[in-house]
């Protein structure tokens, strides 16, 4: 029943998309600057149908309608209500529906919110966006239909992977999708701008808010993913350089570069084609990421079931997208001699772009290289943290310093009067760094440099708040929080303490300043899993502080899986992080203990960073 209804709405959405494209082409032929009323209506209707489609699928998950394959494969009648709902987008088919929702809603909002801009530009954006929507609707209907029926109807579902049953993971995909699927709208707008020759700073104004929205959500989405990895995967890290994490980082770099190059286009009418390239690149990277994750050619923690036919479809779609945009770019491209003074804000914005591109290429190479060697030389390798850390870390130092200097410069021509000022800040930063070394612990030269340069950015941004006549608070906040982010990652990296050992019930072990006792083991039964909860007392012998942590081993039934739940005690100074795992046929448990200083500040910095994007969005909306 729900299956038929869902399929019907999906087909209806295809018809609506075709109608929108048809009327838009008709409307292009008229000479006045008005868009037909029915285009607005159709576009609204389209958003509503897709939402209805999504709610239908949610309903199927809530009532556990196992006649639908997607529900059967990803749900279970005993699953808690909340996870039944989040299961809707925790799988390939459902998440594609989320894709289309964002494509259509952004399409509709762009249409109604940009009334000041020329008709043709808006119509072409709508047309191209609807071609993207059609592409994904066809993919959904013919390859990954969330409403496919199954007969005979199974009595029970297979259950959602327990590791995905987590509140952070319920909101992680929607946030991330608003980010990188949202970038589709400026892909379409960039194409429309080339087609209609709408190439001045007004174009920059029309897409700025959209770039900021997608950037803010992308940042939050990446953050929630990291928090999930930290809590759930049980080894205390928050970034793996896993190919799929990289796939979310790649569009983020492109977006960040785009935000900055848009400034130059908006203020100085320069770098138009460069901005276009970044618009196209962002969405292209998003689709590439989707291809890499969904086709199953990468192995990673994000396991979507492998199905090569999906890969073929997305790859064809991606190729079409790339070559169409390249075709327009090459035919429209005019080399313009943009004269930029080397000592001006424009130059610093360009430097930001070079850095972003450097990071982007590094991460892209690291992600694709294993695929290339596998195909070309038949050798399987994996590129891990050592590569990224050694390539990216040293470059961050220069980046942070230029990030502090850039905002102090002026447009067009700049006189460098503030050399003394920067010297003063550097001395401050160096003193603070060596105070940390003196009072706590020394660390490597590269860590020293990272911490000094992040302090340089922090101090310089803080001074800006008091110094500038015209306060660009969103910018200051974002730069400041980026400085804090790197600063806290640096300290966290250098001052973490870790111990790995085996312990049995009642036993006491002592390492350095800590004493560990496994006091008790508690066995309990929950609706969808059994749990063994350890009661571990940790005493800090230097301060005589005592605390109890309760790590858990969970045994899930549907599907049968073991997960290890970390026990984490957080405060503003440090996290105590403890996981426990069983050792077969032995009374011992393996304990992994970590003390991670200032952990929460890493999360707070990223929240502040994205809040900077949000404030910038508000400011931009107010100015226009």
């Amino acid at each position: 029943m729900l299956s038929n209804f869902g399929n019907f709405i999906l087909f209806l959405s295809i018809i609506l998309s075709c109608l929108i494209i048809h009327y838009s082409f008709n409307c292009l032929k008229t000479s006045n600057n008005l868009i037909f009323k029915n285009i607005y209506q159709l576009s609204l209707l389209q958003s509503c149908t897709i939402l209805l489609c999504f709610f239908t699928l949610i309903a199927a998950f809530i009532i556990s309608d196992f006649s639908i394959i997607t529900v059967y494969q990803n749900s279970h009648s005993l699953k808690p209500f909340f996870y039944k709902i989040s299961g809707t987008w925790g799988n390939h088919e459902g998440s594609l529906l989320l894709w289309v929702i964002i494509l259509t809603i952004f399409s509709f909002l762009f249409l109604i919110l940009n009334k000041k801009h020329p008709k043709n530009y808006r119509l072409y954006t709508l047309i191209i966006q609807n071609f993207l929507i059609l592409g994904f609707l066809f993919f959904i209907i013919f390859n990954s239909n969330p409403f496919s029926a199954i007969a005979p109807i199974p009595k029970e579902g297979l259950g959602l992977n327990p590791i995905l049953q987590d509140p952070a993971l319920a909101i992680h995909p929607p946030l991330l999708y608003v980010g990188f699927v949202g970038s589709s709208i400026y892909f379409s707008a960039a194409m429309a701008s080339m087609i209609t020759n709408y190439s001045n700073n007004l174009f920059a104004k029309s897409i700025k808010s959209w770039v900021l929205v997608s950037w803010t959500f992308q940042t939050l989405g990446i953050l929630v993913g990291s928090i999930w990895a930290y809590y759930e995967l049980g080894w205390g890290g928050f970034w793996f350089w896993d190919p799929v994490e990289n796939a979310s980082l790649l569009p983020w770099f492109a977006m960040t570069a785009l935000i900055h190059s848009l400034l130059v286009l908006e203020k100085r009418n320069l770098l138009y084609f460069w901005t276009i390239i970044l618009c196209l690149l962002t969405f292209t990277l998003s689709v590439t990421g989707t291809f890499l994750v969904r086709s199953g050619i990468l192995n990673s923690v994000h396991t979507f079931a492998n199905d090569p036919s999906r890969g073929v479809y997305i790859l064809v779609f991606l190729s079409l997208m790339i070559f169409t945009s390249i075709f327009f770019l090459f035919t429209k491209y005019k080399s313009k001699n943009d004269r930029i003074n080397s000592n001006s804000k424009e130059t610093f914005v360009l430097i930001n772009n070079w850095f972003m591109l450097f990071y982007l290429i590094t991460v892209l190479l690291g992600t694709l290289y294993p695929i290339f060697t596998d195909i070309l030389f038949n050798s399987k390798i994996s590129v891990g943290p050592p590569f990224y850390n050694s390539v990216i870390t040293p470059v961050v130092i220069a980046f942070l310093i230029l990030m502090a200097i850039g905002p102090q410069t002026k447009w067009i021509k700049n006189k460098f009067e503030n050399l003394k000022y920067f010297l003063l800040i550097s001395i401050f930063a160096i003193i603070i760094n060596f105070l940390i070394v003196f009072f706590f612990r020394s660390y490597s030269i590269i860590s020293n440099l990272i911490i000094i340069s992040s302090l340089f950015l922090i101090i310089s941004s803080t001074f800006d708040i008091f110094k500038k006549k015209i306060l660009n608070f969103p910018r200051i906040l974002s730069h400041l929080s980026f400085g804090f982010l790197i600063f806290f990652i640096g300290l966290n990296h250098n001052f973490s303490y870790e111990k790995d050992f085996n312990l049995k019930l009642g036993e006491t072990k002592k390492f350095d300043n800590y004493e560990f006792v496994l006091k008790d083991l508690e066995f309990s039964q929950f609706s969808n899993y059994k749990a063994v909860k350890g009661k571990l007392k940790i005493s800090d012998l230097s301060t005589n502080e005592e605390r109890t942590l309760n790590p858990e081993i969970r045994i899930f039934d549907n599907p049968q899986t073991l997960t290890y739940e970390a026990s984490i005690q957080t405060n503003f100074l440090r996290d105590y992080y403890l996981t426990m795992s069983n050792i077969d046929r032995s009374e011992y448990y393996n304990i992994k203990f970590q003390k991670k200083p200032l952990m929460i500040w890493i999360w707070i910095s990223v929240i502040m960073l994205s809040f900077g994007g949000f404030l910038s969005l508000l400011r931009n909306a107010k100015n226009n």
Partner: protein
Amino acid sequence: MQKTIKSIIILILVFILGIFFLALNKNSNYDTEHLIGNKLLNIKLDSFENNKIISNEDLKENQFTLINFWASWCAPCRDEHPYLMELSNENNLNIIGVNFKDKKTYALKFLKSYGNPYDILAKDLKGKQSVSFGVYGIPESILIDNKFVIKKKFIGPINKNDLNDIKDIIK
């Protein structure tokens, strides 16, 4: 100049997309079925008890050898253990047990409580040597003859059918 740059960009994109396409058609990374019929010529395994290295020399006397990868922490290994015990009674089959990413004390405890079916015991503490056998996870077993040709591979625990297969082959 501009033309050259444009052509290079297109070539790079075609190259990347081409690789993606080929990658789609490539078999899954962990499929090692194609190894059957190949020869295992450079066997090198660390002995479990001492510093000796076990090589092809040590195996050529046996008519058939079953190389079994196992660990005390691996639950499916326990399931297949009775079948290995049964196979250890076969006269023309030697069994090598490669203890995979394990601790010696736990491994010995395991063999003490479930029995030791192995004629030779080897260890692979970091799971590195096993990769050259095409083994990424355990349990996994490889049956070779006295010319070191792989007769059959068993990914996952050996079951009743596998047991009969092995008995048929070594007859």
